[in-house]
């Protein structure tokens, strides 16, 4: 089942990358947990309603990643969400391929959610106007991660996502985006980003 992104999920990923232009960043994508598997649910896209920005800088260290995964998993259960994917933007502009870290985390997510996807951000196409989607989506097929063609169908509403992301970038909202690293620096920083979520809602 292919994944689809809401405006909130997409714009928070882009804001995270924009906040730390000189670092690699990563995070998790969450989807609503469906109550029961409908018989004809094959082929229906999984809607990623939100994302949780995790780290910036060194992405490859295990302990905080484990803490984040477990904590966010617990939070998901309380809110009827499920961790459905992983996103990453690499440090170098021209490098947008998933690396070992991405594959490891995605494999871990797949243990709980079989259709987990990796979303890579293409740094070289990041602009203020966001005139085109800058994500690459990878699905797991036959033990390999293969990229899928990204169309406007990968978004719940691309023109809304584009409008909101562009507006928030112009307004420098990324300065207020909180990731899990910020949370570990000061526990009062809320990684669910209620302020940004509200801004997104206001712009819808």
């Amino acid at each position: 089942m292919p994944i689809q992104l809401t405006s909130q999920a997409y714009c928070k990923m882009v804001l995270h990358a924009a906040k730390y232009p000189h670092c690699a960043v990563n995070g998790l994508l969450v989807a609503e947990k469906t109550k029961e598997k409908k018989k004809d649910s094959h082929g229906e896209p999984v809607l990623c309603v939100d994302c949780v920005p995790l780290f910036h800088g060194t992405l490859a260290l295990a302990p905080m990643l484990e803490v984040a995964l477990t904590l966010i998993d617990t939070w998901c259960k309380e809110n009827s969400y499920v961790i459905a994917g992983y996103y990453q933007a690499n440090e170098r502009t021209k490098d947008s391929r998933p690396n070992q870290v991405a594959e490891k985390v995605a494999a871990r997510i797949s243990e709980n959610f079989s259709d987990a996807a990796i979303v890579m951000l293409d740094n070289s196409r990041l602009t203020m106007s966001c005139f085109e989607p800058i994500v690459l989506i990878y699905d797991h097929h036959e033990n390999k991660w293969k990229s899928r063609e990204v169309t406007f169908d990968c978004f719940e509403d691309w023109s809304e996502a584009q409008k909101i992301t562009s507006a928030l970038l112009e307004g420098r909202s990324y300065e207020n985006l909180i990731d899990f690293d910020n949370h570990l620096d000061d526990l009062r920083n809320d990684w669910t980003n209620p302020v940004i979520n509200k801004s997104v809602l206001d712009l819808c």
Partner: protein
Amino acid sequence: MASVSEMYDVGWEEMRDKLRKWREDNCRNSEQIVDVGEELISEHASKLGDDIWIIYEQVMIAALDCSRDDLALTCLQELRKQFPDSHRVKRLSGMRLEALERYDEANKHYDAILQDDPTNTAARKRKISILKAQGKGTEAIRELNEYLEQECLRCVCCVKMTHPQLYQSAYCFPCHFHSYGKAAFCLEELMMTNPHNHLYCEQYAEVKYTQGGLENLELSRKYFAQALRLNNRNMRALFGLYMSASHIAASPKVSAKVKKDNMKYAAWAATQINRAYKMAGRGTKENKCSMKTVEEMLESMQITMS
């Protein structure tokens, strides 16, 4: 567009002091530096005295980060006029070429500096950064290792004390390329010369944990504990202590005593974590949810670990 001084109601002295603080803390908030610095330079240059030169340097580097080549060039030209034969300014010229991705020309600048002064760390570091930017990670690490070895042969203490940045980058590159052994080595050196720095202890513990295996886990637990002794508010160290102790306690290879001891450490860490969240959540409704989530997470981990 409103000026910085209008928007934030600050005078030029405050702007100058802010720039100094960002310099001292090594912040990379380039957009803000450009906003504040550009205004300071264009409207208050005469009041800054000799500070202006270091401000030109700081603003120039921030301008490169923001693709403001116009501003970078202005700053660079002022610096060239004032310090025509300076290696430091030559390095800035090199950095501008790097930002424009003209790596060969940049390397020529740095090679020229190194010919004149083979010990120039800044130029060596830039050359290594170019390799990294070009995706030549293994070469970058090799160059870094060679440089560190050479320096160690010449003057061990000196280098470590005066160039922690070099060791720090030396630790970041290997992590990026999964050479955790090399990262651990760099952190060991940093810890030796900076024994009171809780961040190095905690980062070392994280690298050991990532390397895995019982021995590394026990080492990581010790260093997380050490980091906490140095700074009892380091949340990463607290979580790290909890995770490492829990994993050790859950391992089938440990004796009953070790298991019991580690369960005690983990339980202590869990209490401290809960307390820290409680303190952070005082008064805010949203953070109370966060506290509940952490409590549940710690409980559920106890179940899976035991």
